């Protein structure tokens, strides 16, 4: 077995080591990267921008801490943006841990100076309806009656006591829905039920792995915009002018991608050379 054969069957732990190094090193480096905006992110931002202050935005947190590195930066940027712009936010979660993630996002958002100035109030500027089990059927039920689906918020207050929830009956009283999703139930269900059945205007933030599956919906106009993974988060941060972790982590991301690409190239070189050697 020659060197290239060995290289082709390299112990995967060596690859692991390089990946770890590529992710860790950039944390201690400061290199500035230029971020370009992709059309699907622009689409989402435009949809947000078209909302006048006071509009009602529903944000569904359909993920858990496992996907937080990707989705939390989006959530934080969206919350900061909504608060700073005076949009009213209705939060809910189709995943049990979703509403906890929402509270964490709001905590970070409230630290921003722009948001502090606006001093958003619970009940008036945002509400957290909490988690409701039932997956896509929760969406469907909301299509006919939101207060019946969520009779109380996450703290147990009746929704009729919350000023923001006044006059909210179903999706037609909500101006925009933004769904942060890491799987099922998630964007696909929001498209099928909220957008298809009840014609709600829908945008989404997805883990990068979910995102490719959503392009058909994007092209069909069932989704107005889409943030895919950390890159999507960093682009959205750039558009809204609220730089956060998405931008910060992007460097590790670039390094890690490069290392994988380098390995793929090495693998192919080794493959061709060792095949060439054998032919001789």
């Amino acid at each position, binding site marked *: 077995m020659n060197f290239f054969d060995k290289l082709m069957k390299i112990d995967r732990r060596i*690859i692991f080591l390089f*990946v770890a190094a590529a992710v860790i090193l950039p944390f201690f480096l400061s290199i500035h990267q230029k971020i370009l905006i992709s059309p699907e992110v622009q689409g989402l931002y435009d949809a947000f921008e078209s909302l006048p202050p006071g509009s009602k935005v529903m944000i569904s947190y359909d993920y858990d801490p*496992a996907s937080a590195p990707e989705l939390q930066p989006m959530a934080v940027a969206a919350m900061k943006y909504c608060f700073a712009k005076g949009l009213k936010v209705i939060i809910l979660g189709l995943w049990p841990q979703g509403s906890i993630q929402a509270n964490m996002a709001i905590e970070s958002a409230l630290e921003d100076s722009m948001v502090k100035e606006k001093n958003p109030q619970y009940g008036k500027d945002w509400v957290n309806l909490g988690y409701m089990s039932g997956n896509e059927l929760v969406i469907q039920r909301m299509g006919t009656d939101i207060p019946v689906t969520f009779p109380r918020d996450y703290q147990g207050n009746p929704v009729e006591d919350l000023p923001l929830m006044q006059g909210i009956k179903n999706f037609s009283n909500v101006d925009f829905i933004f769904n942060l999703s890491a799987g099922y139930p998630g964007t696909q269900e929001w498209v099928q039920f909220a957008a298809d059945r009840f014609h709600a205007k829908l945008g989404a933030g997805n883990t*990068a792995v979910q995102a490719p599956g959503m392009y058909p919906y994007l*092209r069909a106009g069932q989704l107005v915009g889409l943030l895919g993974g950390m890159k999507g988060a960093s682009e959205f941060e750039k558009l809204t002018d609220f730089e956060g972790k998405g931008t910060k982590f*992007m460097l590790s991301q670039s390094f890690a991608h490069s290392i994988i690409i380098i390995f*793929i190239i090495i693998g192919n070189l080794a*493959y061709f050379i060792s095949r060439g050697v054998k032919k001789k």
Partner: protein
Amino acid sequence: MRREIPLILTATVGIVYIISFFIPHRPFGSVETLFSDWILIIAAFAIWLGALNLLRVSADKIYRKKKDWFYALVTILSFFLIAIIGFFFSRGSHFQDVGTSFDYLYRNVYNPLSATMFAILAFFVASASYRAFRARSWEATLLLLAAFFVMLGRVPIGDMISGFLPENIRLSEVATFIMNIPQSAGQRAIMIGIGLGIISTALRLILGIERTYLGGD
């Protein structure tokens, strides 16, 4: 009794479900909600079976002093720890609120385990792509190239490398093109296929042609 009633039940429920999609009038319009609630309740009962099985298999390991019996004991203890805390010491149905003992376990035990298990995928993605993305054939080359362009195009570094090119053929644009056009087309073909497969399977289930799930008599 053992097979007929279940088959009739499947057929009836399936047909009612389908019909209710076309009839907004009560009671059909609300059938979906009701049935879905029922399924959730049944699943909540069923998890007792799973939990009992896990405990029984683990206890069996300890009892017979099988290899690694110690770890089985750890599993049993962890299960009871969180179950007891969740049922009795965490504000009842508000067990997930911040500050409960359940939440403490969730944040410091469950969540790091879950997030790390998810995160080691980063390493597996690297080793899988090293092995799988080799230009062995024309098909494999397409796979490789698509992965290559999308991977680079999705991070800012891709645009740094291809910065000298005109804007509309830079790597991020190429990646967007691949995702939007051929990827989207392939995805759609898969989706339509899946749609047909599911429709036909659903139909076979409703009509009782596919009844393997019921087991034997």
